[in-house]
């Protein structure tokens, strides 16, 4: 699975379950947590999705802006865990 595939999957997930039709432009660098698009609960749901979808396991300290603030960061993090 390439980084682009992962980005696509994550983007679709965010669009369908978090943003849901709001007119938010989702770019690879759009700040998700610091920009207020994803709150702490949605973050946990997204973590759940990433774990199931990509077969990885998160540690509590990894649920962090450093790893999850943009689609780009998420994709890189997922790839590093695989």
């Amino acid at each position, binding site marked *: 699975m390439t980084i682009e595939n992962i980005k696509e999957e994550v983007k679709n997930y965010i669009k369908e*379950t978090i943003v849901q039709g709001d007119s938010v432009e989702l770019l690879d660098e759009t700040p998700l947590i*610091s920009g207020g698009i994803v*709150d702490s*609960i949605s973050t*946990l*749901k997204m973590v759940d999705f990433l774990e199931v979808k990509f077969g990885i396991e*998160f540690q*509590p*300290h990894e649920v962090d802006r450093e790893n999850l603030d943009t689609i780009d960061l998420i994709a890189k993090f997922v790839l590093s865990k695989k």
Partner: protein
Amino acid sequence: MTKKLLDSLFYVLFLFIGYFIWKFQVEKSFNLLTIYTLTVGFSFICFLFNIEIKKALPILFLSGLFMMYCFELKDGVIHYHYRQFFILLAIYASLLCTLIPRYPLLYKKIAAVVWMILIAGIYLLKGNEISTYRYIPYVIGSFFMFRTVSYLHELKFIKKEASVLDNINYFLLVPNFSLPLFPIVDYKSFITSYEGVNTNTLKRASLFVCRGFFQLILYRIIYHDIIFPISEIHTTSDVFIYVLSNFLTILRVIGAFHIAIGLVVLTGYNIPDLFNNIFFSTGFSNLWRRTNMYWKNFIIKIFYYPIYFKIKRIGIYSALFIATFICFFITWFLHTYQWFWIKSSFPIELKDAIFWGSFCLLVAINTLLQQKDLDRSTPKKASPPYDFIQQAFYGLIVLVVMSVLWSIWTSDSLYNWWSVMTLAQNINLHAIAKCLYIGVFYLCIASAYHFYQKHKEKKLLFIKKNMTVISYVGFIAFIGGIFLSMVIARHLNNMYFGLRIIPIVSERLNKADMMNIDNGYYTNLISTNNYCSQVWTNDYDINKNPTQYINMHATRPTYDILLAENIPNTVLKFKDNMTYSINSDGQHDKTYAKVKPDSCYRIVLLGGSYECGNGVSDGEDFLSKVETALNQQYVARINGEVKHIELINFSVNGYMLMQRFYQYQDKARAWHPDAVFLFLHTDYRQRITNYVSRLVYGENKINDPYLRDLIAKKQITKHDDNDALLKKLGDDADSINTYAIHGISAMTHQDNTRLIAVFLPAVKDIVMARDTNFNNYVCQRFDMKLLSLADVFYSQKNKDLSLSDVDFHPNKKANDLIAKKLLDNIILHQDYLNIQFTKK
């Protein structure tokens, strides 16, 4: 160069704000001006000479430490306390050594725990002396209590360890000196946020400081103009306003935090925002996300995520719910933990559980409903055009519910809270209209806010782009408005100026708190564990409030009508070699022979804390001075026989008229006085209510039949607070006082002793209304002579006469004034005592 010149304009703004902080005495009790001036000055020097501020910050810390704990300007003379400075410095250095170097994490954790136990040990060792070092644990505690936790947590996972300098700067945040209740700055966010002093940090810092200042002034307006004493609550709208205004006092914490964060940003560390317009929340979970985001992130990172990951197997929603619940419990505990380090109290009460438990449930339910709603609706419907009004409406509900919860949390007891709430039953059209008016007012403002949030990217882009300029202009207009009000009020009506404007531009207590302090309500720090109360003050310097200390250490309970008595042979030592002594007979006075010598004219004094001379050293209280002056400057004769004058002080801290009556009957009378000076003040109705409340609440033995019957007749219970008692007692409050004076009068009449009333006004705020009708009435009724010292403080400034901002007892200057006035009165009315005084 031009850029630098433009950036330097920010410092001009900081200079102006510094002036306002000085002028308006913002957080004066915490010496904010000192720390503000130091930080701004230091930042400016670094900016001017292109010094990398990060490297120079330890110097700022040392300057702060020196200015706060070594340097003291008193009566125009500079005093240095080097020992305190070096002790604190040594403790800081040792703490940093155990935390900073690259030791294994386990060692650091052990070191941190050992340090905390040691400091907590110092905390709990309370001697019989007010030590100038007593504040040390408070200072250390407020610096390290949370940052150590965040630091040790992050060390486990951090990929690249920060520099030693960053670590030092993290622990030694200078604004913490004047704001012991400090936001929990996240370690990782801090060390990655350094930018140095540049346009961005200067702009953000100035906006934070302006916002903080604005919020603190707004808090004052609410505190002085909107909050009123419980006794003045009568209808639904009163309850509504009372509850809402109490919640709004959270502005004090928000404002102080914004100034603190602004000062940190000014030192180059561009840390994130802290609050996000909490009064415009659209739900309870939204409120939790907007309120003190540093705290929320701390809880989530350290506790929430680890708990959630441990239990997530049980299902995402169940895990979320349980983790939320546990985290609120932890939040409750940590608030109490915080108070332990700042005030050495560990308050755990049912009302805390109700507040945090209810808030937790509301947040958890709100979150789950939102999530389930999200899960159901795919795709989400487009938001309706007027949803900003709906959001404002939700905000109003959140505000009202939170205000009610807040009123529980900050109340004295659940019983008292409920007795206030029951007054909401008194509903009338006027009250409904008032509530509606407030609600609509909020809806308009909140709708405008949500409208802006919704359209700022498209329709209102111009406002968004110029928000910074709008903020500066708004701030200047706000300050200008206050100054203008001052000028207009001063010219139009001086009384209005005194009552309305002065409380806003200076740090002082409102009517409710003044009454409470007057009654010794806060003596045992019952209700001061409240973040937002103006009474909440740091106890770094307990010397500021000697009365509290004297009450705790120089008196003991009697479990009867006296409530307390002086402990014989007590000597309390304060700083500056000041002493407060009780002799072997339990009098705050020198020792006298109980058997009166023939050559002596003996006057016994019945009074309370004013007459005890709290806050001035033995011999410097006005009564000792009058006694010395009468004997040294005058010759006293009765029928030609020379007499030595004795003024024996039977006053005890906190004694009201009823206690003075029994003090005279049980103790002073046996000393066979020739005259009795009964000191009278004002507000006796309020004072006696407080006395009865303490008497009943403490289940003391009421050995006076009149008082016992009255308490039974009025159905007074220990659950009644002062205001409820005042209502129950009604005019009988005055009757109790009259009864007490009648008792003293009857005894003195029987013994052929002269009873003289001495009216001594309180060193009080001009806001307090005073009336002396009661004093005049009892003097006439019991044929007492009156020595009136009513104009003793005439043309003086009140702040020059009180011990401190939190202790309104007369200071040395006030005692000197009273002594002179009383002496003049005694000489002028020497016939009252039947003595002829001639000057030596």
